[in-house]
């Protein structure tokens, strides 16, 4: 039997569901043919166990210059520049990652809890002062992770304002590729300046720590590392907060599970399981390798679908239901293998603070528009909502 390869874009399965084609294939064909927008044939993996197998196998390379991507219009990618270890394999990847891992441990991230609480409360105060309706993305979901990662890295306030403006431009819905490119160049130039400033005047923060590290990183490496950390720290948590709040407002009966300190940790895992914001990641086979009985040839790109893995009935009972009380550990929202998200413990702290703080402050929080009118980021590298208009009851 021959079947046509899948092509992009895939068909939306609905606001809170993975693409239709991928959900349909997971049970019968956990690995299936795809044709990437660059015309090359490759594979799509949807089953959780198989995804973990691919991401753990060093025969599958993360080198960005080797891979095809599902995004149309993406031209050939040059090799990762020094420091951008997300697009590298060991040992280069290991060299850079280990400079940072000590800064993102479970324990260190928990120490940030109090500060994240303060930041959340400041933004809630501002929302209360402004009064409903507000766009939750702009008022809460985006600025909290931005402020946290900037403080962690040691981005001073004057840089932060400029940086946030460019970051907003980069993720603006109707930004042209040229505008995005221009914003990115702007961010790189600020970060380059900032690295210079830290060299002259190191302070007590992550970037200064890297500048003075024995590894002797170059300005280019430092700038790229800072760019990667900022980028990874922004859109990810911001989209999880925006999309998660949207889902909770559609399932208000579950809100008490996330506001309860006893159950919040698992509730956050369930939101990560149900609504991973990274639709997938791509690896390229360095040699012929068999996966689920099919022969993947050297040079073929394999995309793993994190959302379908998180709905896999082999691991999760009734996987298509959002149930904040279910055991949710074992999701792959942060990936798997040596590239598993470096900042995942930071994301957990941010989400464990920000969701409960929001619903405690505004118990009557509700959507200010019909759910169908919430603009979805189904056109972006990272899923989420562009805006989330919300309202609440005010006393007067």
């Amino acid at each position, binding site marked *: 039997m021959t079947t046509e390869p899948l092509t992009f874009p895939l068909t939306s399965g609905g606001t809170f569901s993975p693409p239709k084609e991928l959900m349909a294939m997971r049970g019968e064909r956990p690995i299936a043919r795809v044709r990437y927008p660059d015309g090359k044939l490759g594979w799509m993996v949807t089953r959780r166990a198989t995804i973990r197998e691919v991401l753990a196998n060093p025969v599958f390379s993360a080198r960005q210059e080797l891979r095809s991507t599902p995004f149309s219009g993406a031209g050939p990618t040059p090799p990762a520049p020094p420091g951008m270890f997300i697009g590298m394999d060991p040992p280069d990847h290991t060299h850079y990652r*280990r400079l940072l891992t*000590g800064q993102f441990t479970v324990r260190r991230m928990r120490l940030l809890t109090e500060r994240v609480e303060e930041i959340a409360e400041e933004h809630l105060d501002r929302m209360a002062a402004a009064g409903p309706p507000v766009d939750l993305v702009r008022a809460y979901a985006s600025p909290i992770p931005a402020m946290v990662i900037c403080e962690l890295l040691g981005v001073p306030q004057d840089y932060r304002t400029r940086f946030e403006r460019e970051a907003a431009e980069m993720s603006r819905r109707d930004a042209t590729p040229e505008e995005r490119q221009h914003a990115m160049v702007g961010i790189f130039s600020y970060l380059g300046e900032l690295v210079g400033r830290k060299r002259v005047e190191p302070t007590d923060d992550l970037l200064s720590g890297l500048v003075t590290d024995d590894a002797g990183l170059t300005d280019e490496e430092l700038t790229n590392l800072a760019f990667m950390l900022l980028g990874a720290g922004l859109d990810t948590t911001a989209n999880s907060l925006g999309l998660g709040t949207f889902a909770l407002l559609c399932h208000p009966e579950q809100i008490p599970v996330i506001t309860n300190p006893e159950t919040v940790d698992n509730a956050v895992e369930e939101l990560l399981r149900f609504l991973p914001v990274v639709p997938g990641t791509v690896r390229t086979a360095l040699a012929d390798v068999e996966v689920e009985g099919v022969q993947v040839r050297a040079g073929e790109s394999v995309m793993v679908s994190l959302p379908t893995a998180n709905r896999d009935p082999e691991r999760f009972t009734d996987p298509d239901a959002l149930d904040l009380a279910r055991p949710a*550990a074992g999701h792959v929202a942060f990936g798997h293998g040596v590239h598993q*998200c*470096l900042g*995942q413990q930071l994301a957990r702290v941010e989400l464990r603070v920000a969701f409960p703080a929001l619903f405690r402050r505004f118990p009557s929080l509700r959507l200010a528009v019909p759910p169908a009118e919430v603009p979805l980021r189904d056109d972006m590298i990272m899923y989420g909502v562009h805006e989330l208009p919300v309202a609440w009851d005010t006393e007067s």
Partner: protein
Amino acid sequence: MTRIEADRELCVSAGMCALTAPEIFDQDDDEGRVVVLDARPSADLREGALEAARLCPAAALTVHEEP
């Protein structure tokens, strides 16, 4: 009884073990690599150890069952 073995060379410092079974695992301050706090955990911690080993993204943990 249960014996835990951790391969610190394989470890990628994701912190899944310290998150899943904090009674048994921690991370060092320098590179965040796994530190085994309790290499022979009591029976009530066994399931946590197994889950941590299953979730480890780098397959750095082994749980041995010994007589």
